[in-house]
């Protein structure tokens, strides 16, 4: 199983591969794009991108020397036609540089790039929200050699989709970054903090009403308040437990390490570490965690799970289940879940 890991600077490439990453992914917002479109929207993220083609070339060279590959993200949800033409040119340049794959978030762009016939693999981004076997089949027909699953699929769903599309490669999230909603169905902007930031982190006040026009009673309001308190707790986990790390530097937050055996058995061939905009230390420690766990993939599942859960030395946090990408991988079928106890770092 391959580890797919993010980089945002040239100097990150070599240590990331040395730490165990097989495939690096990155973004670029070149000056000619910014000048033409007055926007950073080459991909989903405004920050954490290269700006010079020379850096992209250097990263590809370093990765190749170290035995790895580089994929380029074109994972905005949508592009105007002129932008797609520019992305076609960028794809050609990336191919000439020796790039490995394009990670594509717009279905029209995916089909267009496939028709270009470049010597590049096409990976259907999680932004394309592949939630069923039919979508995976369509993406394969369009030219995607790999489909990146969105978050919020169960392990059974993943295995079902992969099983129904045996010729297709699949990739699943394994560490860091937990969208509250579905990123493939999010039409908002990660605004600057002064304007509210990501909408799922914005400090909305909620005022419940009943659809029938009656005012909620005291018992209803109490139940809603309990649910909202649990929701706030879940949000804390979803956003990486306050972006905290262990003493050893391992990140808390969304994690699928316990699910690695099930993902492998279910037909997933690559796992993705999210967080392109993160610090290099966080990225390196993330790769270390995944590599160390993957190295135990042939061991008994319970042994691997115990190892993964011991990495952060915080079984109470793991025990909530709220850090899990795949809560159905919880040991004991979820019996050990202790959500609602509100542990904190």
């Amino acid at each position: 199983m391959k580890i797919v890991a993010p980089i945002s600077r040239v100097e990150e490439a070599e240590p990331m591969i040395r730490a165990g990453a097989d495939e690096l992914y990155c973004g670029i917002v070149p000056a000619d794009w910014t000048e033409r479109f007055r926007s950073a929207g080459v991909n989903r993220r405004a920050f954490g991108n290269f700006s010079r083609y020379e850096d992209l070339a250097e990263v590809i060279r370093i990765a190749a020397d170290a035995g790895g590959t580089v994929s380029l993200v074109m994972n905005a949800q949508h592009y105007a036609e002129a932008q797609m033409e520019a992305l076609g040119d960028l794809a050609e340049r990336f191919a000439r540089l020796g790039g490995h794959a394009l990670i594509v978030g717009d279905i029209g762009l995916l089909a267009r790039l496939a028709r270009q016939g470049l010597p590049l693999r096409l990976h259907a981004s999680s932004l394309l929200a592949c939630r069923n076997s039919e979508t995976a089949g369509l993406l394969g027909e369009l030219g995607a050699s790999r489909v990146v699953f969105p978050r919020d699929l169960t392990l059974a769903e993943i295995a079902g989709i992969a099983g129904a599309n045996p010729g297709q490669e699949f990739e699943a999230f394994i560490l860091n970054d937990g969208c509250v909603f579905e990123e493939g169905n999010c039409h908002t902007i990660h605004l600057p903090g002064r304007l509210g930031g990501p909408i799922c982190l914005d400090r909305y006040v909620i005022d419940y009403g009943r659809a029938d026009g009656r005012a909620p009673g005291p018992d209803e309001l109490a139940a809603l308040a309990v649910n909202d308190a649990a929701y706030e707790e879940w949000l804390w986990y979803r956003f990486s437990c306050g972006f905290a790390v262990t003493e050893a530097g391992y990140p808390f937050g969304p994690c699928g390490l316990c699910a690695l055996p099930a993902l492998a058995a279910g037909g997933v061939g690559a796992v993705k570490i999210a967080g392109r905009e993160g610090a290099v230390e966080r990225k390196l420690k993330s790769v270390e965690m995944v590599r160390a766990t993957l190295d135990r993939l042939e061991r008994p599942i319970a042994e691997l799970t115990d190892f993964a859960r011991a990495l952060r030395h915080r079984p109470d946090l793991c025990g909530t289940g709220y850090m899990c990408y795949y809560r159905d991988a919880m040991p004991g079928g979820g019996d050990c879940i202790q959500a609602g106890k509100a542990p904190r770092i």
Partner: protein
Amino acid sequence: MTTLALGLIETRSLDALLADGPPSLAACAERLGWPFVPLGLGARTIGRLHLGSEFCETLLSTEAALRHALARSRDAGLGFALVTPILSDAGLSRLSSLLPLLPDGTEVVANDWGTLRRVGRMRPDLIPVAGRLLCKLIKDPRLPSSEWARLYPHGLHSGPFGAMLDRLGAARIEMDVPPFADLRDFRSTTVKVSVHAPYGFSVKGRSCRIGSLAQPPEAKFTAGQDCRRDCLIYVGGLSRPETGAADLPTFQRGNTLFYRHSDAMLETVAAAMAEGWVDRLVLTGDWNENRRTH
């Protein structure tokens, strides 16, 4: 003239709504508790009924509800569409049991690419429609100016998107009205355009806040969770009082965050209708902000 479609998730109001034939929008507003009728269309009668949720697999129509709605819409002389959400494989299986109930030529509004493909493969005699979850554009209710949306232009009328629709047999798209909508957003030379009003959606999740209300802590906020359908009972008004920002009125229904259209947005829709670019308006019947007072 633009056709009016009434979108419903539940069928419990259907018999009363259609008792005297196709109702006016004013009658729909009275029966369904809408706070207002958009675009001054209260006297116009609906021409179509659209049944189903775009946002949640749990709310996919049952066979009984579908049969009921098909019969009532036929009796009332209304066009009909089955609306479907983004579906898992289990949901696709459920949909596959619904499709045989639909008469030839019935529209099916699909909100994921796989569902669109399944409909075409299983029932090529039906009319597939690309739902608004497939029509990507920036719809953030907090945007302070149109410049923000300009940074991420949409490609709804681009050649590649049109080719995808054509490949899957969809000759109609359903759109939301984005904040700071431009008249040209609704102009297509290749497909018919339906527009939803007076609410658009900004973002949807799979894990569901209100759907977790009845669940124990360990079963809350997770994929495929059990659900008591509390979204049919509660709606959450959302505000950001600390910011003082002039957001569009925002609310959460089930797993989805919606905004209400501003007057300026509705005026743009009216202009697009006058141009003949919007040939159908879909009114959100019963899964909206429902701020009725008794």
